[in-house]
């Protein structure tokens, strides 16, 4: 696989056995998950899955030659794309070298099917090295509470319009100094977020049903499973009873301010802005530091440089982590359990900071279903569950309708 600066690319080991009749996924179905924080895309071809993951932001870049490449690695530490004749810096390095404020397009249902959303999805396909000769099917998830018929139609028609408005689903992009590629989208499948996470447990990459046995010896998805997807922007709580979706509950299942951005990132940003003279620090900066803080093992001392100051935000992150876990428990888990949920299905990166506290509280009492506990989901990270599961769901659907 090629490498790009500030872009995470992963090739997974085979996660399933080849089913009778051959692999259902041939590399033409792209599972995307353009969250408020990062964009992810997964593709599976003959049982081998690959993924790309990078921040859901782009920054306009001045001039054509400001970023020189050397041996495939940008001297300035970033990857760029040319999208509709505009050059943008993308990836983790974008925040560090950008002159302009980052474009993020968060916290609005309008972002689904927007030009920004489309650019990120097409970029993810190019970074994954998707073969442009294939006519592609895109899986695009949206928060279930926002996913009414209008939004679904908007997402589909926006992607299918194509860059010249010819309704041909064709979009072109250039990454770094590589040749310009044109992709053709043949179909867009819009799914409510959470279906993917449930599917990541229920099936493997071959679309084969996998048992998910809990501490009581029963399949944990057989009763009332509450999928709790804690994202960067939203928190979704979806009721699935014996595999049946509850359409009524879908519309009330999204808390638009229940994600890490509102519960952790914003309070820290406000605090920093009120106590320093910094005007250039934005939510994406805090998000980047939060990820670094998590990767460092949640240290109490975690200092960042803001202008001429060194600011220790470790204790604040820790305190907000505990408060977030309490909020998730009080406002999402307890109400679901009171209504009758048998198991809580973890999904989304928000669980990274509240899993310990919540799993400890419910140990031996309620099944908190974590990908870490099952062989077929173990290699999948919490924030990738939805996108991976969407592929599993596609594989199972294709196998069900094979003639």
């Amino acid at each position, binding site marked *: 696989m090629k490498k790009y600066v500030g872009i995470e690319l992963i090739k997974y080991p085979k996660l399933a056995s080849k089913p009778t009749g051959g692999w259902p996924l041939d590399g033409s*179905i792209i599972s995307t998950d353009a969250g408020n924080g990062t964009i992810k895309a997964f593709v599976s071809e003959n049982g081998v899955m690959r993924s790309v993951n990078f921040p859901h932001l782009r920054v306009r870049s001045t001039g054509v030659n400001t970023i020189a490449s050397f041996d495939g690695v940008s001297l300035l530490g970033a990857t760029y794309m040319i999208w509709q004749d505009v050059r943008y810096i993308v990836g983790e390095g974008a925040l560090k070298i950008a002159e302009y404020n980052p474009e993020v397009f968060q916290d609005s249902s309008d972002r689904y099917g927007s030009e920004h959303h489309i650019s990120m999805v097409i970029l993810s396909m190019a970074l994954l090295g998707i073969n442009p000769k294939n006519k592609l099917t895109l899986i695009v998830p949206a928060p279930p509470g926002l996913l009414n018929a209008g939004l679904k139609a908007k997402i589909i028609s926006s992607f299918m319009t194509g860059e010249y408005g010819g309704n041909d689903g064709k979009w072109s992009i250039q990454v770094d100094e590589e040749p310009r590629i044109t992709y053709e989208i043949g179909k867009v499948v819009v799914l409510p977020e959470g279906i993917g996470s*449930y599917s990541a447990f229920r099936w493997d990459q071959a679309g084969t049903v996998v048992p998910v046995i809990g501490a009581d010896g029963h399949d944990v998805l057989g009763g009332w499973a509450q999928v709790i997807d804690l994202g960067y922007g939203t928190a979704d709580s979806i009721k699935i009873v014996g595999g049946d979706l509850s359409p009524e509950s879908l519309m009330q299942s999204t808390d638009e301010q229940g994600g890490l951005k509102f519960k952790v990132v914003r309070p820290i940003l406000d605090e920093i802005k009120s106590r320093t003279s910094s005007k250039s620090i934005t939510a994406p900066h805090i998000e980047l530091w939060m990820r670094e803080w998590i990767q460092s093992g949640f240290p109490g001392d975690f200092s960042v440089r803001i202008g001429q100051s060194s600011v220790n935000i470790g204790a604040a992150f820790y305190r907000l982590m505990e408060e977030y876990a309490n909020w998730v428990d009080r406002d999402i888990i307890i109400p679901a359990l009171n209504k009758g949920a048998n198991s809580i299905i973890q999904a989304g990166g928000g669980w990274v900071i509240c899993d310990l506290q919540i799993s400890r509280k419910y140990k031996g009492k309620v099944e908190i279903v974590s990908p870490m506990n099952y062989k077929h989901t173990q290699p999948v990270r919490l924030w990738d569950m939805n996108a991976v599961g969407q592929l599993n769901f596609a594989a199972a659907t294709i196998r069900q309708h094979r003639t």
Partner: protein
Amino acid sequence: MARRKKSRSPNGQGLFPAISVTFDLSDPDEFRAFEMAQQLATPHGRRKHAIISFLLAIYDLQIQTGQEFNADTMSAQFITERLLSMSSTQLPSSPVQLIAIRNDSRTSMEETAKNLLNSIGNVF
């Protein structure tokens, strides 16, 4: 030395947020009420819960009937009759099993898979 004044509601209007009840055990009605209180005494705190539930029920009854209650209109028989008359059906004289309960109602993993696929449809 200044003596603390005993807190007391003016004219016994029930403004103090605590009540103490002494049962007259020579009165047959109060004796039965006392027996009920004893039954509700365990675990600790259940009597308070029962009294609050009872008062809430009276409050709701007052709202629904539009009739203001006072100590003169209250009697156990009156409350029992009113509560029963609000039920749409008469209580059965002997217990009848109207609801069947199955302890293990979990769906098999194959069924859950089929149900989810069917609920989304053949979208690929």
